[in-house]
């Protein structure tokens, strides 16, 4: 631990290559007491009583280990029990940048740890909620999910705050999918126009394993920068990453997604949908890097501008390191099509209704292999996000 502390201290001034650079020290002196209660979770369609894990600021307030086949515990407890020795700061490097360093130094060594037991296919989703409640503070949960061999786990995480609690969220997520395992991870973010958010995520998927991620950002935010990295290290491993970014007001967002196809026959698909309004500024970066024979990857980036003064920059990147790979991307950015609006109006929809149908349609992402309850949660988040436009 002392060695980790030393590395973190050295990295504390290392900026991220992307996103607005923040001063960590600005978030170390809370300006008031906590300002939120758990009921606010209903704003993102989550019932707090169903959650397996709830953390407010840096403190776990609910841990319910009631789902058969899954171990649910706090990070501090998992560290004490020696359950995560090989997983702590492994998929995410502690010295990635100042935010990983700050998470180690100021995050209080809390967060959720979910372990799906070998061969167990757990249908019931594990729900976790992270609330940033104290104005002017840093919240840095460190989350670890392990899906053992042949197991299946569905995790839903909701993160939110209120406008009264400006702060920095720098959540660390390390996910490990073992041979033949499957993890679906659905993350719903509802931050405030005063929030700065820097999640750092690393995923390692072994042979025949699958990682499916759905991410939704549904409200204005001061700044968000993240670039989850997925490493497919075992033969035939697969990844699917979708993100729907709703960016109104002055939101400054830089969201990436990188998948490294390191083994034979691995495959990945990255889908991003961005809707900007008002003066929002969004960059989406996607990278598929292939060095495994027969690897396949596809990136799709769609951007929809609902105002003249917003901006979308989309940067899909394909990196082929051997010849026997198939990588492709398609990207389209623009405003709502006049032709489509007119078409819907010929059916009797008002212009406003037509817009809403098209915007909601634009946000639609492929949902496959999710339990009905997760699918419903995701759809509800999309509905709520669309309502805000």
């Amino acid at each position: 631990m002392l060695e980790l502390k030393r590395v973190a201290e050295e990295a504390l001034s290392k900026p991220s290559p992307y996103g607005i650079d923040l001063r960590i020290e600005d978030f170390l002196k809370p300006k008031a007491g906590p300002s939120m209660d758990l009921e606010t979770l209903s704003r993102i369609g989550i019932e707090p009583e169903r959650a397996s894990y709830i953390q407010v600021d840096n403190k776990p307030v609910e841990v319910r280990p009631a789902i058969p086949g899954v171990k649910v515990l706090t990070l501090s407890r998992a560290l004490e029990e020696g359950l995560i020795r090989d997983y702590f700061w492994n998929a995410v490097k502690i010295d990635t940048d100042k935010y990983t360093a700050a998470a180690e130094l100021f995050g209080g060594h809390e967060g959720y740890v979910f372990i799906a037991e070998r061969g167990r296919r757990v249908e019931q989703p594990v729900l976790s909620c992270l609330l940033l409640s104290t104005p002017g503070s840093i919240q840095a949960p460190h989350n670890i999910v392990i899906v053992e061999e042949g197991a299946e786990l569905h995790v839903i995480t909701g993160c939110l705050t209120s406008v009264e609690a400006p702060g920095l969220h720098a959540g660390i997520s390390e996910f490990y999918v073992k041979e033949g395992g499957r993890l679906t991870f659905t993350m719903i973010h509802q931050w405030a126009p005063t929030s700065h958010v820097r999640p750092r995520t690393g995923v390692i998927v072994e042979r025949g394993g699958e990682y499916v991620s759905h991410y939704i950002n549904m409200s204005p935010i001061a700044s968000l920068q993240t670039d989850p990295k997925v490493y497919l290290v075992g033969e035939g491993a697969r990844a699917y990453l979708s993100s729907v970014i709703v960016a109104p007001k002055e939101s400054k967002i830089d969201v990436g997604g990188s998948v490294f196809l390191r083994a034979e026959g691995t495959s990945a698909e990255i889908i991003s949908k961005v809707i900007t309004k008002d003066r929002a500024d969004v960059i989406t970066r996607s990278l598929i890097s292939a060095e495994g024979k027969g690897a396949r990857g596809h990136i799709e980036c769609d951007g929809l501008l609902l105002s003249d003064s917003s901006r979308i920059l989309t940067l899909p990147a394909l990196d082929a390191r051997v010849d026997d790979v198939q990588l492709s991307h398609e990207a389209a950015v623009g405003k709502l099509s006049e032709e489509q609006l007119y078409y819907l109006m010929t059916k009797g929809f008002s212009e406003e209704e037509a817009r809403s149908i098209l915007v909601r349609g634009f946000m639609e992402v492929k949902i496959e292999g999710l339990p009905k309850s997760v699918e419903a949660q995701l759809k509800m988040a999309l509905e709520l996000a669309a309502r805000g436009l």
Partner: protein
Amino acid sequence: MAMLKVEGLSVRVGEREILREVNLEVGEGEIVALLGPNGSGKSTLLHAIMGRPGYEVSGKIIFNGIDITGMNTSERAKLGIGFVMQMPPALKGVKLEDLLKRLSKIYGSDRDILKRISEELRIEGLLGRELHRGFSGGEMKKVELLLLAAQNPKLALLDEPDSGVDLESLPIIGRVINDIVGASDSKAREKRSAIIVTHMGKILKHVRNANRAYIILNGEVKCFGNPVDLIEDIERYGFAECLRCLKVI
């Protein structure tokens, strides 16, 4: 009373004048065919009746006694004008069945009838798909007819419902049009009407009450008459001959 009266309608799109002083009438319960070569202005006339934004229009369009010239597109649709576009756009993420549900709700259309029509058109398999994405030309036409049925319009504007449709499907399309217009039911409560733009007139053999056809050439209505006779002449002599003949007149 005529259901639709178009009086002295001229349409400019940008610099181009596409229609000049068009006069046309559609009676209650009548199906009128619009014939003419490519680029003559047939589709533009339907879009003008539908109130397409960006068209500069002079003249009058009267629907059921109401002057709709200044109304927007959705107001016209709500009054009872339905439109099947020649090339409808694909809508990403919008499922056919969802759109159908919305339309049924707005127009109070009978879900059982729609189910029967979708079976008749053999497009049940498309209901769960995103609208017009990857659909063939024929599938698009059939899907548009189903959506039109959900709208249950008093006046249907059909832009080439027969193009891209295989020969075997033509009678089915004709039957569904008859159904929507109410021509298959002589005791229909309300008289419904339609304008059908057709290039080769193939569909007219399969719809009832298509008693009149107008020919549009270079943005002007040149004549009208019995559609069967007109099509025979056009097939034999072409539109050019038709124009020459008209000049002689």
